[in-house]
């Protein structure tokens, strides 16, 4: 029997928490570990426009974040790989989509830093490349590093396998990816899960995202 949790919301109630002009993190690597129920619910929120989206990719044409992009709701995208969606390439060419491109590891680390109260960090990745243009360079122990500021968001939409009623999360295989990092780095965190189990059903040593990070739970595949 599924457990009840005071954190449970419908997908549309959760999507309504995304306001115009805000920054939204969306977990997933391609469509794997993507909170698709929540992303689809955003389409029904007439206020979800002019968004800045922090996500590794922008979905596929018309699917996931690609659907939001088609409707012109994404003003800016921060991520590592947008070429997999031709619509993103076209929107950028048309001047309708601003893009901030980061190496995938720097992106993940910046999100973790945002959740961990780290203001900025120095990383060797991308030194000497065009992604270093305009960035602060500093030698540390004789090795050049780039400064990267932390990333935070107003809302994070993440995908987990199971939650307990308190909001502790565990993930399934490689669907984990950016989700635990993003679950730490936003003012409001909404987790889409397959199942909500009783408190005590998750072993304390296996919890990946402790419940204090999670504000709301939404059941995957339930659109209402």
């Amino acid at each position, binding site marked *: 029997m599924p457990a009840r949790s005071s954190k449970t919301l419908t997908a549309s109630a959760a999507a309504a928490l995304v306001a115009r002009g805000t920054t939204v993190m969306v977990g997933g*690597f*391609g469509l*794997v*570990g993507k909170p698709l129920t929540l992303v689809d619910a955003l389409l029904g929120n007439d206020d979800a426009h002019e968004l800045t989206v922090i996500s*590794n990719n922008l979905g596929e044409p018309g699917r996931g974040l690609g659907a939001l992009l088609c409707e012109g709701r994404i003003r800016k995208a921060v991520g*590592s*790989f*947008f*070429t*997999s969606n031709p619509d*993103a*390439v076209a929107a*950028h*060419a048309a001047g309708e989509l601003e*893009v901030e*491109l*980061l*190496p*995938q*590891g*720097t*992106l*993940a*680390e910046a*999100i*973790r830093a945002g959740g961990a109260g780290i203001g900025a960090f120095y*990383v*060797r*990745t*991308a*030194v*000497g*490349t*065009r*992604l270093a243009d305009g960035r602060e360079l500093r030698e540390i122990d004789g090795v050049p590093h780039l400064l990267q500021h932390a990333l935070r968001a107003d809302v994070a939409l993440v995908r987990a396998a199971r939650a307990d009623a308190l909001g502790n999360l565990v*993930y*399934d*295989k*490689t*669907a*984990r*990816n*950016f*989700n*635990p*990092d993003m679950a730490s780095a936003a003012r409001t965190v909404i987790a889409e899960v397959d199942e909500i189990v009783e408190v005590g059903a998750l072993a304390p040593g296996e919890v*990946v995202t402790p419940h204090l990070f999670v504000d709301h739970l939404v059941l995957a595949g339930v659109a209402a």
Partner: protein
Amino acid sequence: MSVAETIARRVAPQLADGEVANLGIGIPTLVADHLPPGRAVVLQTENGMLGVGPTPTGAAVDPNLVNAGKLPVSELAGASYFSSSASFAMIRGGHVDVAVLGALQVDERGRIANWSVPGRPILGVGGAMDLLVGARRVIVATTHLTKAGEPKLVRACSFPLSAERRVDLVVTEHATFAVDDVDGLTLIELADGTSFEWLCEHTAADFAVARALRRAGA
């Protein structure tokens, strides 16, 4: 055997028993299928897994179990899963022994361009730059020529570099080059059926030739 498989088969013996390897998208991914029997190479994929197993078939395909190319993979005993930040901490922190990467161009110092094409907007980079700064050893697995028939090994890359760090080995279907800081590229192996003259004609980078140049079956 396809050209891609020929290249993958030539790369495979370079991975030592017990090493942790990250295989890039495309030709590098094929290397896993050509490892010598009994060679236990542990595969890391930057989307958050150590212990990647072979491509599953039929009902064994799990949509939540993919590699960095978003292709289905399987889980070996002793595998583990982790977040993206933990995965790149591993990579940047020097915990991955070897990365096998594709390349658009390789310069004569062994630096590579593999993420962006001049004249096109810069909209994708993925994890290549992280692997180039973090992997202890980097092997390039690439066709010798572009689809247009141009040499990929060039004096200086006209495409944007992916890192300042040089790679350690460049493997094509025609030849294998070692790379070091003094000599840059050194030809160490020439494929059967490839003449030295052909190679010189189709390689725009200067390179040295090893005393112990080997011939290898394609």
